[in-house]
């Protein structure tokens, strides 16, 4: 249990998937102008990560990992090189299914999340979390916690960024730095602030 809590805290703060590993920057930079859209996208990312990371864990450990096909009588086969193409296909498929399910059962949720779901397929945070989960050899419950935690960390980062950008509207930014430049530097300062959490161990 302690292990799971520490994975969660670590993936939200110290190892924040956006601020420490730079994943999901594209949508982060294009959406973080507006608080409401940022919150919607953040929520959608948490949702999708919480589903895709465990599903990809199952696929990797039941089909792809070296020796994973032992149950089918093929213990020597190592298909781990196929993980990239299979993970991205799974993510694209799940995003599509989630979109259809939400559309069918919760119109309110669809109206707030629906537009963001297609964007999420190409968000590198989603594929990145699955790849990190394999690289760090997480177990199943750890993978679930890691998925939710990195989604929460990403959402936290994009929402704080949107809030800062709203305040920055009243600031006098040098001309060449306006737009992309200042956003990168603000993100840098934010990343520094998040690193302060690295002293916390559970």
């Amino acid at each position, binding site marked *: 249990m302690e292990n799971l809590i520490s994975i969660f805290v670590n993936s939200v703060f110290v190892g924040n998937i956006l*601020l*420490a*590993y*730079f*994943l*999901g*920057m*594209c949508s982060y*930079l*294009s959406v973080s102008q507006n608080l409401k859209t940022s919150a919607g996208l953040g929520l959608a990312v948490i949702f999708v990560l919480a589903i895709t990371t465990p599903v990809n864990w199952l696929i990797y450990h039941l089909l792809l990992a070296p020796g994973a096909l032992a149950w089918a009588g093929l213990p020597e086969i190592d298909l781990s*090189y*196929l*993980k*990239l*193409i299979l993970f*991205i*296909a799974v993510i*694209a498929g799940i995003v599509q299914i989630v979109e259809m399910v939400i559309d069918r059962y919760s119109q309110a949720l669809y109206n707030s999340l629906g537009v963001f779901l297609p964007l999420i397929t*190409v*968000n*590198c945070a*989603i*594929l*990145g979390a699955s*790849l*990190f989960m394999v*690289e760090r050899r997480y177990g199943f419950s750890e993978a679930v916690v890691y998925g939710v935690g990195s989604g929460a960390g990403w959402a936290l980062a994009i929402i704080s960024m949107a809030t800062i950008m709203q305040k920055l509207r009243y600031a006098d930014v*040098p*001309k*060449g*730095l306006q737009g*992309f*430049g*200042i*956003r*990168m*530097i603000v*993100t*840098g*300062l934010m*990343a*520094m602030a998040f*690193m302060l959490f690295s002293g916390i161990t559970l």
Partner: protein
Amino acid sequence: MGRPWKKSETYRAVSAALYESNPISKQILGICSALAVTVKLSTAIVMSLALTFVVAFSNLVISSLRNQIPRNIRIIVEVSVIATLVIVADEFLRAFLYDVSKQLSVFVGLIITNCIVMGRAETFAMSNPPGRSFVDGLANGIGYGSILCAVAFFRELLGSGKLLGFRVIPDAFYAAGYQNMGLMLLAPGAFIMIGLFVWLENTLLGD
């Protein structure tokens, strides 16, 4: 033919990719990997080569298939072409440059979701002949690589006083109290460096 080289379509595509609409500094694409692999110059170079390979060949393949691909499933087709090429690049690095591939960790795999590759496939390769698409891919890869290597150059120089693993800052400097700037090795250093680069570029070139 007979047209001067400067006016040809290919020339325009190349100059746009390298300079006027550089994928990183002007179009803000592919930032994810640009930041993560720039702690050292060597990883940045390998990453640029891998991306150039993937984007050039994915453009070539998708452009040659462009009349066969049904419009409504084109994204899936594009992703599978790109993913296949990324697997080739990843396996190649693992076989011949194992150390670098360990340092790049998941970021080679993430070329799949790199917006530059998808973006070029969508906007250029789907509507242009194979030869020109290939050149466009090469140019975009180099445009991406040039920013990547510039950022990595400063991060490695300021952060660890080395270039490509060789110490370049003389010992006398350290004896005189010079210190490496640890910030450059950490994540915030990357963000700030790119921010400053964009500032420099906007100021020098104007809008």
